[in-house]
């Protein structure tokens, strides 16, 4: 996204808003991750303790989800950069 046509006061306000949004997005990602990995990994309720197998599954699930998100983020950024270049190239 391009805020280069914003003046200094507007850019400062956007920075604050974005910083707050990043915190909220992170927290939402955290709770989403807990839900997703719990749902995939925990299916035995004969005990209240996490088994070592379940714990390993949760750790792998978390790590894999982060790598997945990072890869999507990288591809998504490339697509957006292409789209922006295409828009700026006179045809």
């Amino acid at each position: 996204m391009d805020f280069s046509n914003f003046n200094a006061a507007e850019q400062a306000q956007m920075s604050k808003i974005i910083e707050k949004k990043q915190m909220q997005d992170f927290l939402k990602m955290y709770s989403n991750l807990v839900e997703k990995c719990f749902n995939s990994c925990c299916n035995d309720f004969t005990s209240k303790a996490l088994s070592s197998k379940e714990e390993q599954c949760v750790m792998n699930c978390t790590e894999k989800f982060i790598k997945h998100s990072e890869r999507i983020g990288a591809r998504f950024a490339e697509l957006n950069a292409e789209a922006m270049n295409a828009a700026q190239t006179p045809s």
Partner: protein
Amino acid sequence: MSFLGRGGSTPTGGVNPERIDMAVTELDTVTDFFNRMVSSCHAKCISTRYADADLNKGESVCIDRCVAKFSEVQKKVGEKLQNRGAAAASAGGAGSFTGL
């Protein structure tokens, strides 16, 4: 996000609240698309057995194609909504419950 114009010009040094509002809406929209893409491509590409913490080759390739395909769908649906008229498409939204 061709649906969103940018508000008018801003007096030097001041903050144009409409421009900020528009930018926030744009940011929220991109974030929403991104999150849905993450979720959809996770469902399509990632095995939920979680025997491993790394993306394997097949998963990685699947993710790359999934992003490309999801973006194409986004474009096609966007064009369709514009052709059909945004007004008609939002039928049933908040506007239709009010007399205003």
